């Protein structure tokens, strides 16, 4: 199952990407305009220093242009950019030496909190449930939250998430599953009235 982002079609991305590789400044600018805000939001979830995050993301794009000759032709542009931003911020946070082993996966924390779609909720019952669920989601370990964010908001595949978080496929899958399953367990025991699923389905 191929998942595209909600807002943009990836088919356009690969054309822009390959044009950028050929030195097309317009393609570069279009990709920049398309992803800059996404990346800012993602970057801000790791660091409270908004200006540094902006700087990092601009550096990521600058490198994209400077090293365009060696970009992989078939890259998923979004995954590539998200991952570059993540790595860059991780390294910036640890930088002191010229060289270091990337232990980025553990060095930065996904601090983002999900919010609630208030305007889509009409009845009080739903509002209560959603509020509870939102609270539990935001209490998840940061890596699980990040996995959820990348999977359901950025539409990355499990493989791409595994790559980004530097874990194997199974672990990435577990991150996602654990997030969903543990939460459901917790949720169910806390508020038995909200048991929505018969165990048979799982």
């Amino acid at each position, binding site marked *: 199952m191929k998942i595209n982002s909600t807002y943009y079609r990836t088919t356009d991305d690969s054309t822009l990407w390959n044009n950028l590789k050929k030195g097309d400044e317009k393609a570069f600018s279009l990709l920049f305009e398309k992803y800059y*805000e996404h990346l800012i939001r993602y970057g801000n979830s790791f660091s409270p220093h908004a200006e540094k995050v902006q700087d990092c993301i601009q550096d990521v794009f600058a490198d994209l242009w400077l090293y365009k*000759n060696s970009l992989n032709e078939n890259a998923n542009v979004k995954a590539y950019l998200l991952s570059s931003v993540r790595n860059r911020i991780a390294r910036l946070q640890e930088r002191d030496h010229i060289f270091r082993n990337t232990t980025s996966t553990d060095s930065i924390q996904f601090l983002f909190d999900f919010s609630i779609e208030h305007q889509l909720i009409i009845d009080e019952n739903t509002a209560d449930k959603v509020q509870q669920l939102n609270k539990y989601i935001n209490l998840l370990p940061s890596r699980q939250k990040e996995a959820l*964010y990348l999977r359901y908001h950025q539409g990355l595949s499990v493989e791409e998430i595994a790559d980004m978080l530097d874990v194997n496929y199974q672990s990435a899958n577990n991150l996602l599953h654990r997030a969903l399953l543990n939460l459901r367990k917790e949720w169910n025991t806390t508020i038995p009235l909200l048991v929505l699923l018969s165990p048979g389905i799982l």
Partner: protein
Amino acid sequence: MQKRNNYTEIEDFLTDESFQSWVHNNADLENWEEWTLENSMRAKLVEEARLWILAMKVPENNLSSSALQTALVATWSKIEKNENTQKKEIKLWNNNWLRSVAAVLVFGLLASWTYSHLFIPNNSTEIYNKLVNDEGLVEQTNNSNNPQIITLSDGSSVLLQPDSKLSYPKIFVGNERKVYLSGEAFFEISKNRKKPFFVFANEIVTKVVGTSFRIRAYDNQPDIEVLVRTGKVKIQSNKSIPNSKKEEIVLLPNQALRFVRKNSTFNKITDITKDESLVNATNNIEQLSFDFTDIPVSQIFKTIEQAYLVDIDFPESKLKNCHLTTSLNDQPLPQKLKIICKSLGNNTSYEMNGNQIIITSDGCN
């Protein structure tokens, strides 16, 4: 839409774009509502998935388009800055050293003038042969179709183009470094202010202290071109050539010179981008930037491979997580490799055999 009939977990719904859009915008293009009501277990699953989406909101973007444009402009100027870093470094260098260097050069020129008056003019057009025969030198000819890398005893590197030859002493002795070129080559000269570096190419002599530049001086072509990438280069006619002029031309980065052999005139080209023949002749090495900020070392090796057309063999898995921030512009190839190896740690070294480079390493610090 048959695939949704196999959905058994919330996850399946959360990644379904059509489902998301139904929850978010109430846009039920695929009859989710009807499908949900077909089956009560399904309905529960759908309801839970819906709650998940409602509880996992990510705020909408609110960056203004002018802020976006400002960011884009800032990024382009970062790119430009990166491409021009080398120029800035040179400016600084000049500020500090220009005066003393100039004094030394004036002195040197006076001396060389006195010397040149003792020279007896010679009518040979095979200037290269004459120049080379005077001294016992190593001659390297590139008969292949690809550029060839030559490393000189002072650590300078020369990328010799096909159908070109370079003569140079095995070891530079004395207070000068002199090489002789016929054809085209890109030079990256290791800095040594005490021993200026001279390239003799047909009728002209190019003098540098430590820079990178390209010379194109084929015997069978009507003119000679010198194009400077970094540092400062001085060019004058070879005094041993009859009717040579006293003129001396100074070139700064991204300036070039065309010497018309027929009438021994110098044409300085200050905007190389407007000169088609120069633009077309630009090689890989002159286009690539060696300014690296947090770049995987494998990428750095790749850049070097492209620039010098060499093969680099390195332990990929051991260096997988190594990143480097450094500026290697203006450094000859051996120096580039040395800096990289040193930064990687004590157990890293390189070996160079022709165009084959082997890196041995236990990984980075």
